[in-house]
């Protein structure tokens, strides 16, 4: 079990990210930031994380989210042999964030999921479109509202997101949480909960937008 910042813990059926599981995220609209938040919670507890096939990952954002860059290995361009690469990384890393460069065959995907399960690693799929297996968890950003930017003035300062978590087994019932991602309080608090009343007011109108 990976401990997850308290703000996000409500999303997960077991109040934490279970080892030996597969998590799917969407690549844009907050998905990358969520992946970084998950990697931050892994590396801050001594685990090692790897990112495969994401050459455009914002490393500065990763550091601001709390990812220990000393425990992060990147394979930006794994080429056609990415299933082998991911299999090797799952042997040694607690978390592997993967964006497949091509949809894998059913056999390959099953083998990787089985490998993650066997080694107790978390396989995070950034962009699970074309992934033939059903992931254990699927995190979706339902709505996002950036604050601080006006019509020609201000700057992006923080973002409210409404994240839904569905999936198999215990995660079958969908859970929804409102988070700051990133929070207005500065870099260290990567993800923070939004009090219920405030969240409803802020996100209600924009919920259909994403």
């Amino acid at each position, binding site marked *: 079990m990976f401990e997850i910042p308290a703000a996000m813990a409500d999303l997960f059926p077991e109040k934490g990210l279970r080892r030996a599981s597969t998590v799917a995220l969407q690549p844009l609209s907050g998905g*990358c930031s969520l992946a970084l938040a998950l990697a931050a919670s892994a590396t801050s507890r001594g685990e090692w994380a790897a990112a495969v096939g994401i050459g455009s990952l914002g490393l500065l954002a990763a550091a601001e989210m709390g990812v220990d860059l000393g425990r992060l290995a990147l394979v930006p*361009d794994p*080429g056609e042999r990415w299933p082998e*690469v991911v299999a090797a990384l799952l042997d040694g890393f607690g978390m592997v964030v993967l964006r497949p460069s091509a949809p894998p065959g059913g056999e390959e995907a099953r083998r990787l999921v089985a490998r993650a399960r066997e080694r107790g690693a978390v396989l995070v799929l950034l962009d699970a479109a074309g992934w033939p297996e059903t992931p254990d968890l699927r995190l979706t950003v339902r709505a996002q509202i950036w604050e601080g930017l006006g019509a020609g003035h201000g700057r992006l300062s923080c973002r409210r997101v409404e994240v839904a978590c569905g999936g198999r087994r215990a995660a079958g019932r969908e859970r929804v949480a409102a988070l700051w991602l990133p929070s207005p309080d500065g870099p260290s608090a990567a993800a923070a909960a939004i009090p219920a009343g405030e969240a409803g007011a802020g996100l209600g109108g924009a919920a259909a937008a994403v």
Partner: protein
Amino acid sequence: MSGGRILPGRTPPSERVLVAVWPDWPVVASGQPPEVPAAVVEANRVRAATPAARLAGVGRGLRRREAEERCPGLVLVGGDPARDARAWEPVVAAVEGLAVGVEVCAAGKLCLPARGPSRYFGGDAAAARRVKAAAETAAGQPGCAVGVADGRLAATLAALSALSAQEAVVPPGGSREWLAPWPVSALGAGFEELAGLLVRLGIRTLGGLAALPGPSVLARFGPSGEEARRLARGEDPLSHRPRRPPPDLACSASFDPPEERIEAAAFVAKALAGEMLDRLAAAGLTAGAVSIEASTEHGETLSRRWRLEGDLAAAALAERARWQLEGWGRRSGGLVMLRLAPEEVGPGLGRQLALWGRSPEEGRARRAIARVQGLLGPEAVAAAVLTGGRSPADRARLVPWGSSRGGDRAGSARGGDRVGDAPWPGRVPRPSPALVHRPPLSATLLDSAGMPLTVSGRGILSAPPAFMSTAGAQAPLSTAGAPGGRVTAWAGPWPLEERWWDAAGRRRARLQLLLEGGDAHLVYCESGSWWVEASYA
């Protein structure tokens, strides 16, 4: 392994050792027949020569030009330690057919405990003859020298001095006396500095060194002096006294799917070597030998012991493992397991120990990285380093894993932060974008009237931005679609002028845009065209 205890207060008798040396092994390994004058040259000096070349006066240490002068038709071959080790493996295997406990010391040198074979074959001389014959049959030519003595140093020197004769046997208990006339430089690798110092102090022979009182040698020259004195007395170094190591010092890796390629396995061996030495260091121990074991998917088990002489660096150990893997060559199936186990573990005298060991997670991760490097090449795995700069792409760089600025925690995190925290006027404020497009995406920005947006030379926008689009083919994440849409909020332009003093200078105006749907992007205008630099994904 033989007996396991050191009795307090008593010096154990040193083991009877048989050493086989092949002084000109590199030239044999290069495949040059003995009747052709040929020499292996390393660093412009002759390292080894064939008998034909020796007849012409070419010997070890001769300058290359001089060697060519003495022997005009001389064939010169470059040195290759891997080739030497590969070719040595069949010789070791042949000797292993005669005796147990064979250890490889280096390419061209092996040793084994002599007691068993001597009894079996009827004496030290008979055993030496059998080993010599087996080695020369395996190599297909004469040139092997074999010596038997108490202690490894005496046996090695006996073998070398036996080159002219058949074999040299120093009788049991006679090693100290036999060694006495040898110069201190005969101590060999690892003792060069000490030997030079001893000569300047007037101690020129091993006999002189052996006669010095032990405590004084230890006090004046430290553990390495004590080790040299023991060697000079015909004893084996204390730290290399055989003892069974605790099992958790061995490091192993398994391959699933089985690894067919030697290169990839060698990368893993490198990681294992580092891990094994870390574990030894953490326990304050050193190893006298390492056993390299591998098993293949068809159930074949391969094992070879390498004696570790001189310095015990991870790189040297990894090199031996690679040589061994190459020596075994291609097997019928891929490797499923590789294991490095230290042997003859003793206290690590006089070695600086690392303060912090590695965590098990780190060891596992480094092994996985080595595996990926074996698959894709060493450049394929990168570490992130924070640096100074004004754009998100400048402020974090990828460096190949294991290069001096990457991989190490100190290099990436601490050193980087300092530079990153220096004032860089005009840098993009926090929070930073989670996707940085490399290269930037070409974009089109329109105002509310549908006219292309421009920025004047004074950094003024022609009109508020109303619409952004990007071409689909260059999308950062293929299935996500190209970013674009109506602009709902924006800020800027923030001018950025860098390196105006040289040709690498750039002049940009930056905007933060919030699009319909809630996605935010960082765009800039340079020379009239717009680019999406990063996305707050």
